[in-house]
């Protein structure tokens, strides 16, 4: 948690001073540190219950995001039609992004269905 906060603060600072390479280095250093520190933790911190909770949370987030995105996209497209091209463009971008997300979900679903004997 402390490491993540420190890396995030450093990335924010590097963006502020307009030095993108520093943020890339910071993220890389963070990944290496997490990998090295992970080996030092003896007790179990992630088990099947945590995985199951993570799966359910991901599925719920996907469902909520997909519905909200569609609703917002439709509103933006309606508002933008004949008025603001920016709204319309933003609406279509959001709609296509949501379609891509759902397509990715379908591909992942098929993959795991085959993997687990579907």
């Amino acid at each position, binding site marked *: 948690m402390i490491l993540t906060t420190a890396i995030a603060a450093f990335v924010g600072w590097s963006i502020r001073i307009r030095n993108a390479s520093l943020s890339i280095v910071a993220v890389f250093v963070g990944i290496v540190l997490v990998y090295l520190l992970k080996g030092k933790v003896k*007790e*179990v*911190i*992630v*088990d*099947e*219950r*945590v995985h199951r909770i993570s799966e359910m949370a991901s599925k719920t987030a996907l469902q909520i995001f997909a519905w909200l995105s569609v609703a917002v996209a439709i509103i933006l497209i309606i508002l933008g039609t004949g008025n603001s091209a920016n709204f319309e463009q933003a609406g279509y971008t959001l709609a296509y992004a949501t379609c891509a997300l759902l397509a990715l979900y379908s591909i992942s679903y098929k993959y795991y269905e085959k993997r687990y004997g579907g």
Partner: protein
Amino acid sequence: MKNRLKVYRAMNDLTQQALAERIGVTRQTIISMERGKYDPSLGLAFRIARFFQVNIEDIFLPEQEESNNPH
């Protein structure tokens, strides 16, 4: 699914943390199972039964047996 995990843990004089370490899960998972909020996977259920050296049915009670078994 109800279980007798707390009973077997007490019979073996183990804390939740100690049991969690022995079977390779977090203490929170043990707490959740004892409260009946989380049903373990088949693999974990077998690991727990093997740890206590009992049959899996001695610890975990399928739903139709909960109403038949007053214990």
